[in-house]
């Protein structure tokens, strides 16, 4: 292949080494690698990569700055559009966004934009560069509900514009899904998530943990009694779904949320933490998204032979390509075109296996993916002592049910305008998974930024 067609390969932990630890899989570029990779950018006049980025980072400019070795300038370019660059560089589905549109990708590899973003963010952190606190504030109080990607990016933008922002978080730690959901080996907590949250706080944003909006205090009380002039709801989609098959309440059946929350938020996988972690020798994870991959790779690292059971085929797996690739390398067994019909239990009510049927793909359904159809008489059993359900999540109805005048749709998602987050209630804005249902970190960040813009316009005209 001609020079320049292939990307600079990023260093990773070897699959069999990392399958037994929780250290980050991808080691990232060093300066030389980053500059060499950045030099592959063609600096297109009409940069398609930017079109593919939900928060429209000025990609050609920051990549050029990396190629020139001016990493601080590159950082300032990125943070002008993104509050969480170290996170996005790691968890965005780049192959469907910026890199998917890269002209280089038409003949050879796309420029490795995600890895470059990560490099710049990590370099800035290691060199103590932080976003700057605004010099003047306007004194207007805004409440942000939820400290996940939507809430953090909304709070970050509002603080930069001088607002007095308080984030309310229900759990004992900030970060939302970045903290409780995405595992350490994909997104390190102390090294990446906590510093990103600290960066937002360094803009002047206050954080109050242990506050459940709708229970500890309502939105109406925040606005009427505590002086908040606007509220952004970024409470995510936290309620786990189950299949409704027999045996699903057996001991040893967990939602992916439970399994990952124990491992990530509660650090139950570490012996000096008090929360217990489910033990498993043979684990089946049901589902094919990023959360399924995260749960499976966690179970594998804790010593289980781990299967992914997914009812469609490989092409339909909704997970990021890199996660599927990593999972396979690490030894996760993929049982595709397979659907569970019953969880089998022993006499004490513990899981002992899972009965499945084989599927084939029929006509495309409403989602455009080919509908899986059961193959008659194809029942078989997989032995398992743990089953993790990673079937998706839906929004928590708590806030909607305790806020007068806040409209929700049939899927219990809050109804909000995409461009500014405006809900059916004056002064209340919303975005992220609470509005769309479960999606990605970057889409939540985009919605958080839209909500910040909406709040800024609303309070400027008030």
């Amino acid at each position, binding site marked *: 292949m001609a020079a320049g067609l292939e990307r600079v390969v990023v260093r990773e932990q070897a699959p069999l080494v990392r399958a037994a630890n929780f250290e980050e899989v991808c080691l990232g570029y060093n300066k030389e690698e980053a500059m060499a990779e950045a030099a592959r950018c063609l600096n297109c006049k009409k940069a398609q990569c930017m079109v593919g980025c939900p928060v429209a980072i000025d990609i050609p400019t920051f990549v050029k700055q990396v190629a020139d070795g001016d990493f601080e300038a590159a950082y300032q370019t990125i943070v002008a559009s993104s509050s969480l660059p170290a996170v996005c560089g790691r968890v965005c589905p780049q192959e469907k966004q910026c890199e998917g549109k890269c002209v280089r990708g038409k003949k050879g590899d796309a420029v490795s934009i995600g890895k470059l973003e990560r490099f710049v963010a990590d370099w800035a952190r290691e060199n103590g560069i932080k976003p700057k606190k605004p010099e003047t504030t306007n004194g207007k109080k805004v409440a942000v509900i939820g400290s996940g990607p939507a809430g953090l990016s909304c709070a970050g933008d509002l603080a930069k514009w001088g607002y007095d922002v308080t984030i309310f978080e229900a759990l*004992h730690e900030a970060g939302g899904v970045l903290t409780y959901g995405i595992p350490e080996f994909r997104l390190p907590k102390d090294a990446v998530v906590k510093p990103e949250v600290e960066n937002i706080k360094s803009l002047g944003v206050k954080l109050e943990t242990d506050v459940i909006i709708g229970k500890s205090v309502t939105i109406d009380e925040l606005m009427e009694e505590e002086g908040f002039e606007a509220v952004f709801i970024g409470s995510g989609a936290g309620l*786990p779904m*189950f299949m409704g098959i027999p045996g699903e309440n057996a001991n040893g059946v967990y939602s992916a*949320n439970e399994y990952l929350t124990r491992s990530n938020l509660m650090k139950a996988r570490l012996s*000096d933490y008090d929360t217990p972690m489910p033990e498993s020798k043979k684990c089946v994870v049901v589902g094919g998204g990023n959360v399924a991959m995260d749960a499976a790779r966690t179970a594998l690292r804790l010593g289980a032979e781990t299967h992914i059971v997914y009812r469609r085929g490989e092409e339909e797996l909704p997970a990021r390509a890199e996660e599927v690739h990593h999972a396979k390398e690490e030894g996760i067994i993929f049982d595709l075109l397979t659907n569970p019909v019953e969880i089998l239990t022993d006499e004490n009510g513990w899981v002992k296996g899972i009965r499945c049927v084989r599927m084939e793909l029929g006509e495309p359904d409403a989602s455009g993916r080919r509908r899986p159809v059961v193959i008659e008489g194809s029942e078989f059993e997989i032995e398992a002592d743990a089953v993790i359900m990673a079937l998706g999540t839906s929004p928590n109805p708590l806030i909607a049910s305790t806020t007068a005048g806040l409209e929700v749709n049939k899927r219990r998602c809050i109804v909000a305008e995409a461009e500014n987050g405006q809900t059916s209630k004056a002064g209340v804005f919303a975005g992220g998974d609470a509005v769309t249902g479960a999606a990605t970190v970057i889409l939540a960040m985009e919605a958080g930024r839209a909500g910040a813009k909406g709040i800024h316009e609303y309070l400027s005209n008030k």
Partner: protein
Amino acid sequence: MYKILKVEQLNPVVLLMVVEAKRVAKSCLPGQFIIVKLDEKGERVPLTICDYDREAGTVTIVFQPVGASTQKFAKLQAGDYFMDFVGPLGRPSDLCEESIEELKKKKILFVAGGVGTAPVYPQVKWLHEHGVEADVIVGAKTKDLVILEKEMEAVAGNLYITTDDGSYGRHGMVTKVIDDLVAEGKVYDHCVAIGPMIMMKFCCLTTKKHGIPTIVSMNPVMVDGTGMCGACRLTVGNEIKFACVDGPEFDGHLVNFDEAMKRSQMYKTAEGRAVLKQKEGDTHHGGCGNCGGDE
């Protein structure tokens, strides 16, 4: 950080703590619970709210140190802090949502078993403050283990104390008292039973026999307490419910107690169960979820 203002030993095995938690104290109602976490490495432990003082911004919790975490809590003294104290969680008791007129027409019976006396107390107190008198049965293994007797006496209509060994009050289990009261001609049209799972199960069998609708308060394994993890799921009727957001109170005649008891032992090792049995001695009531308690 949440300051512990008072620690009181209610009996040889049960502790009461008053904790400063302004937001919780301001908004909580009887029937709800909190989650408390000692320090960075601690578990999130759900505990029912026993009392609250909105003016002082305090919440009272009552617990029996059993697991590793509650045993750590037991070492704390007034002036110490919990790192996290979040709530109120769960739905308030349905009684709090009914009109006072309707409540006054009802004959309400509370049945409290052991530490379950603590979550029963705020409900009886709330009713009392709204001019509704409810009868209360408090059951314990033995005289020393009866808690909150004076407090309960002050707010209950008739208070019936019973001990399994007959050392105090009536002699026998709470289910026997229910049978006796009905035999004595008492009529109840609403019952709330709170205590160990096995006690609630048998209370429900008893009240079902007498045709008394019965609410129970479930306390299964939980992690976040906000509906996120599903660890606390139960079968109620034919539906899956999450105790943390749909409960903790449910129609006791519809709860699948056998499944709930099995699930409650999920994180208990054989070793842990043995320690528990030895520690609790005569008071062992099936908290290990394994042995079926007294039955």
